[in-house]
């Protein structure tokens, strides 16, 4: 085979290989290294480097270098004129004699002279400078012919596309990260808003201080015991925090009345679920059914609740949870006209009203969650924090809870699996 033909085949296979390399290599740095070898090896170029251009920092960073010495500066700032000059060269090798006034050239002049750099080729993709190739002399000692320059240009174009693709990918990753951050921030803002609403509700009702927050927490504990996903548990907690938001529009002296309120006042107070619904409906909640939980948290399974007297299946599930949490808190805290009830009475009440006011499987979940804490099955201390240690450790409660759980399982109506 004649010498020239050998060389031609060699060069063209390098060109084909570099295309493959850029299109198929997933690992960016390996792609750059391999492409760099192909570029140097195709024409037997003794030394050189490939740099990537960062548009944000106006900086060239060398990703691969060979034979340029240990003191070669691997990154360098370039000016806007440099960038313009590179862009106007449009992938043709820049004539070094012409480039002398460029900041970039001044920075690299010692290396360029000492190491005999002959070609500087900007890599431009879609009118954007993505990097630069710097090449020294050929092993043959001959100058770069016009054919050589065309080959270098073609190979540099391939590498440029590889860098461009990588930049696009990085941009996408940045965008995705930014979106996630924004989403997280929105959730935090929402959670803060919910908490300040709960604080506002509780502030108005001085006798039931902290009620909304506790209902939120009990609702959360019940839903967690049901084995729901974190997101649904969060939603139920929010429903608990906001269930009494309608009370914000009820007259303060009705809410804070130290005596039992009259019929007219009761009618006024009983509007709070529907008012709460109206308040919450226009808000875009990240969870479903928050307004419905407010509207129906005073409904009962037997249809004797308000505002609509809904029965069992008609009541949204989330409202049933909030109702139980609400009642549980009412029983276990002091009210102006009623002292908190002892723990054993509360358990008995839950049992007695299971199937009448409360969904049996929810009573099971609540009792089960409390029992787990008391027996040490879970290391959590959430009920203890909300109810106080003494209250939790009243005598015989563990047995009572166990009994309640057995009784509910044995005699309660068919336990419904929580509807999705």
């Amino acid at each position, binding site marked *: 085979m004649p010498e020239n033909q050998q060389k031609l085949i060699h060069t063209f296979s390098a060109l084909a290989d570099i295309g493959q390399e850029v299109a198929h290599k997933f690992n960016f740095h390996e792609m750059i290294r391999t492409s760099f070898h*192909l570029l140097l090896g195709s024409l037997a170029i003794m030394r050189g480097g490939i740099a990537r251009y960062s548009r944000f920092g106006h900086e060239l960073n060398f990703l691969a270098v060979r034979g340029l010495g240990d003191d070669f500066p691997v990154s360098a700032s370039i000016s806007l004129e440099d960038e313009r000059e590179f862009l106007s060269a449009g992938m043709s090798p820049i004539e070094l004699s012409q480039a002398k006034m460029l900041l970039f050239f001044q920075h690299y002049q010692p290396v360029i002279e000492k190491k005999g750099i002959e070609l500087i080729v900007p890599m431009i993709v879609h009118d954007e400078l993505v990097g630069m190739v710097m090449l020294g002399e050929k092993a043959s000692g001959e100058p770069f012919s016009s054919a050589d320059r065309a080959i270098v240009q073609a190979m540099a174009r391939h590498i440029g596309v590889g860098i461009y693709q990588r930049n696009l990918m990085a941009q996408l990753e940045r965008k995705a990260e930014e979106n996630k951050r924004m989403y997280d921030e929105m959730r935090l803002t929402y959670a803060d808003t919910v908490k300040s609403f709960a604080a506002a509700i509780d502030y108005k009702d001085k006798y039931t201080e902290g009620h909304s927050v506790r209902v939120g927490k009990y609702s959360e504990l019940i839903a967690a015991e049901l084995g729901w996903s974190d997101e649904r548990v969060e939603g139920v907690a929010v429903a608990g925090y906001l269930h009494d938001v309608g009370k914000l529009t009820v007259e303060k002296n009705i809410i804070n009345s130290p005596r039992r309120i009259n019929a007219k006042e009761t009618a006024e107070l009983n509007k709070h679920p529907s008012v709460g619904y109206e308040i919450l409906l226009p808000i875009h909640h990240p969870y479903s059914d928050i307004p419905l939980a407010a509207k129906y948290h005073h409904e009962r399974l037997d249809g004797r609740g308000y505002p609509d007297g809904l029965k069992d299946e008609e009541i949204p599930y989330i409202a049933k949870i909030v109702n139980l949490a609400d009642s549980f808190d009412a029983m276990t805290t002091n009210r102006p006209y009623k002292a908190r009830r002892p723990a054993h009475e509360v358990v008995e009440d839950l049992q007695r009203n299971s199937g009448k006011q409360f969904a049996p499987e929810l009573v099971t979940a609540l009792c089960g969650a409390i029992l787990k804490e008391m027996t040490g099955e879970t290391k959590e201390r959430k009920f203890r924090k909300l109810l106080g240690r003494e209250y939790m450790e009243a005598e015989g409660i563990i047995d009572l809870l166990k009994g309640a759980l057995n009784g509910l399982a044995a005699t309660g109506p068919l336990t419904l699996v929580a509807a999705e």
Partner: protein
Amino acid sequence: MNFDIDVRHDGETAIVYANEYLNKITGERIERECKRRLDAGCSTLMVSFRDTEIVNSIGISILLGVIDAAANSNAKVVFTDVNDDTGLLFESLGLTRHADIRKA
């Protein structure tokens, strides 16, 4: 991946076998191995192409790295067991200016 580059050391001459690694990015190991030999004071580097059918652009680039390293250490490079096609390629690319070629 763990592979040993076959190296024989004979006084101040080291023989490195190019094998099939030369034509891939893994060939950088050959370059590193040569640098180690040079640092150890080797004055002649022999690269054997006994088991190498063809040399592609990656292979050429790696050999240029070997040549550059040897030049920095004032050491001599000899390519041995070179077949005809590879010999022609080395000649056309100008590698013969930097290394002695011994045909197979």
